[in-house]
């Protein structure tokens, strides 16, 4: 009996592990030398229905918070402060449920 109580108590305190994905892409109009080379290579390899390919970065972030909105705000913070170069990149945050 005691054991169960303790467990519940613990559960209450424990924050949720929330999971987000962030995709970072170059802004439109910014030169994407990498994308260009990859696209040419794929075309040369015979994949001729390829119209366009853009390369970006991807992050999977796990964070210990209760509140979805607050957590998302934190992730946004990380993006702005470190993960994204706002001068040349755009980003999108998605919660993974």
């Amino acid at each position, binding site marked *: 009996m005691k054991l169960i109580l303790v467990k519940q108590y613990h559960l209450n305190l424990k924050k949720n592990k929330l999971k987000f994905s962030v995709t970072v892409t170059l802004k439109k109009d910014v030169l994407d030398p*990498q994308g260009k*080379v990859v696209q040419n*290579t794929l075309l*040369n390899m015979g994949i001729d229905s390829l119209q366009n390919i853009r390369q970006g970065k991807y992050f999977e972030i796990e964070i210990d918070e209760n509140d979805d909105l607050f957590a998302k705000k934190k992730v946004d913070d990380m993006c702005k402060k470190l993960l994204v170069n706002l001068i040349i990149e755009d980003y999108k945050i998605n919660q993974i449920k």
Partner: protein
Amino acid sequence: MRSSVIVFPGSNCDRDIAMALEKLQFKNQMVWHKETKLPKSDLIVIPGGFSYGDYLRSGAIAGKSLIINEVIKSANSGCLILGICNGFQILTETGLLKGTLLRNKNLKFINKDIYINVMNNKTNFSNKYKKNQVLKINIAHNEGNYFTDSKHLDELKKENLIVFKYCDEKGNINENSNPNGSLENIAGILNKKKNILGMMPHPERMVEEIISNKDGVNLFSSLLN
């Protein structure tokens, strides 16, 4: 001995390796990546540099070029192949060598003279060195952090396929003498048939006293042996 150096767009140690080969009396030819035939060669070198700008993954795009099919054919028929730096990365991307080269542990480009230990001197590429001889040699790379799965690592050890390991001046192989985070300090490996060597350090930069030292010379003269 006839050698061919494959030139990709973005290769930038092609001239350097050609100079070294010629200095050591190889009959060398440069081969442009768009060519579909290789000249008759006893040695094929894939030089260092930034083929295709290192875009996507270093070596990935060169690994899909036309000439690579010919290199693979030659390799399978026993021709000696040497991949240096970006050349090593290309060889892993083509599958001729197993494993892969990850970002350096410190996430920075590293250019330095470091030391390597000759682990196996019974190979086509190292027979002029003494076993456990310590060479001072230049590295210059962003992705030199060798990684492979444990099964392959076992094979490398069992079959004596590790030719060079990073070490210190005295030959000690440990974490402190590992410049880039490579698995077990691996700096250069052979394939199972032992006709393909991939290595991150640049032996072609070590063939003249006035520029550096001559520690790289014996790699080339081993090939002539």
